């Protein structure tokens, strides 16, 4: 139990340390309570997308179409909102997400190609759909319908989504299946778990999470512009990175929180760079470098732990045989 607490503290220390780093560089801004609040609320959107992504990511698959989907969701929502008001936002996002999820699932089922490749093609198509519907025009929703984009609306949606995420990943049969498939596809298969079904469900779920996130995102920014070509992939880089960071930290705390910590980290970085008025170019470099560091750390740690296990085993054998280490 106490070990668990220590682990949690260690994990929480990472964003705190980064925060302190920026606090020292710019106390005037990072010293304010408001900044902390902003950092948290801004991480919600990243975090919710990342939560939806992590199921597939665990199984080694990536859905690059989520950015394009969210834009399409928002477009449908904004158009419906103009007709039926607030309900249109909710209905539009969820409906569009639902359809996208089904389409992806069906295409995957038919074609059985790596999800990443399939979704690259979808980025073109979904982007073009959004553009055709709106004719490239930027759409907006009226202010009175945007309460889900600010406190307490966004906090409520975030907490609800978090609860769903927690239940799905930690309490549900589906979550157990995802973990099993992520561990070993063949053993799962031999125990009667359908690998394909699990992946299709995850594809669908990632769409639904993105759809819910689109509600908050649209409400927060109040506007949506269709994207052209593959640009929308950029929009999900932060969530992807949060997922990776979350995976590293998931050894210490629950994945729901570890991904949130990852999102907060991303949020601190982008706020820090704004606060210091560093060039936006630096942002790209910093984010790329952090991703590489995390991945390198993960791999080196894996190799090291394998070596370490081997060493422990060998040492045990040596002790057993009474041999001295050479």
């Amino acid at each position: 139990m106490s070990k668990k607490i220590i682990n949690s503290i260690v994990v929480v220390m990472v964003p705190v340390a980064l925060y302190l780093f920026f606090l020292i560089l710019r106390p005037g801004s990072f010293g304010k309570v408001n900044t902390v609040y902003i950092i948290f609320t801004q991480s919600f959107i990243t975090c919710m997308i990342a939560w939806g992504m992590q199921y597939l990511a665990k199984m080694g698959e990536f859905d690059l179409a989520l950015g394009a989907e969210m834009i399409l969701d928002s477009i449908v929502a904004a158009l419906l909102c103009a007709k039926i008001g607030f309900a249109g936002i909710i209905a539009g996002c969820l409906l569009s997400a639902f359809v996208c999820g089904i389409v992806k699932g069906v295409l995957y089922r038919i074609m059985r190609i790596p999800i990443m490749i399939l979704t690259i093609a979808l980025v073109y198509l979904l982007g073009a759909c959004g553009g055709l519907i709106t004719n490239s025009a930027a759409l907006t929703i009226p202010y009175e319908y945007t309460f889900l984009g600010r406190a307490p609306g966004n906090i409520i949606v975030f907490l609800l989504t978090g609860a769903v995420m927690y239940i799905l990943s930690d309490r549900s049969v589906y979550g157990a299946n995802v973990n099993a498939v992520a561990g070993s596809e063949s053993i799962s298969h031999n125990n009667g778990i359908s690998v394909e079904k699990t992946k299709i469900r995850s594809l669908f779920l990632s769409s639904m999470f993105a759809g819910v996130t689109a509600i908050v995102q649209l409400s927060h920014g109040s506007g949506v512009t269709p994207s052209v070509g593959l640009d929308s992939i950029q929009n999900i880089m932060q969530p992807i990175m949060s997922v990776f960071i979350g995976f590293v930290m998931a050894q210490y705390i629950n994945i729901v929180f570890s991904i949130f910590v990852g999102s907060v980290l991303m949020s601190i970085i982008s706020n820090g760079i704004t606060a210091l008025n560093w060039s936006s170019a630096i942002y790209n470099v910093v984010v790329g470098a952090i991703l590489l560091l995390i991945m390198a750390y993960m791999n080196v740690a894996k190799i090291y732990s394998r070596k370490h296990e081997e060493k422990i085993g060998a040492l045990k054998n040596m002790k057993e045989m009474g041999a001295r280490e050479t």
Partner: protein
Amino acid sequence: MKKNNGKGMELFINIFPFISLAVVFVGFVVLSGGRTLTLANCRKIFEQSFSLLLVGGAAVFLLAQNCLDMSVGAAIGMAGAVAALVSKTSIPLALLAALGVGLLIGAVNGFLHGVLGINAMIATLAMQFILRGLLLIVCKSGTLGIAAGMYDLDHIGLKAGVCIAFLFTAWLFFRFHSYGKKCKAAGAGEASAIQSGVNIAEVKIIGYVFMGITAGLAGFFTVIRTGAAMYNTGNMVEFDTVIALILGGMSINGGADSKFRSSVIGVLILGILNNGMVLLGLGTYPQLITKGVIFIFVLATTFTIRNKLNSGKKLA
């Protein structure tokens, strides 16, 4: 009977890219009323496809071993920017600098994937971020123009020469050199390849370095073509490369049946497609939809057949 069926499918897989190319070509010739066919237009299609031809030729080696390079577009931009900067001093030096930058980027990619074992897509995606950021810093003041003397290099004969020499050499290496064979072996069965004495890390590093150098060369010619480098030079080339190779009939998992011609055919399909859609005056979205649908169609066709072929083979 079953065997014949397999042979038939294999034959189909092999000629499918040619069919696609023929369909696209004939289709656009007819639709555009012959404008696709004019010598001037063909020349333009070649010039527009030039850097993708180079990069595609190098990407074959990577995709054959089941690796992607998501940073190649940014590498082209970076190499182009450096070439533009150095060209003010000396043009041969600019070429060397571009190749050097490409080599460096390739080496880093190779190290990240081959040595540290970071997933190829993630590693190169992160590199893309970093390079685009650096490129923004390098191009801070706007575009980087090239020295006037460099325009002389924009000569169709020279480009054709470079392209043919490059593709021919790359083809030789892919088809006949032990390196090309090792790439295919690594993609077809990594464990078996390792036990047959293929140094996987080395093969991967060489692949990325070659890709990097090629990106350097492509970057050099890109700035000659555009007259300047800017922050988004080489934008999205990485995706175009993958799409071209798949259109050209390459399996996304690489392996022994990877063919060098996939890159050339695929790039030509893409080139004719892009050129033809403008000749027909298609708007932005119809263009995107056309591309997406063709991509999915080709993917679905080849994958379905490949899956069938593989499941047949697994029984043996």
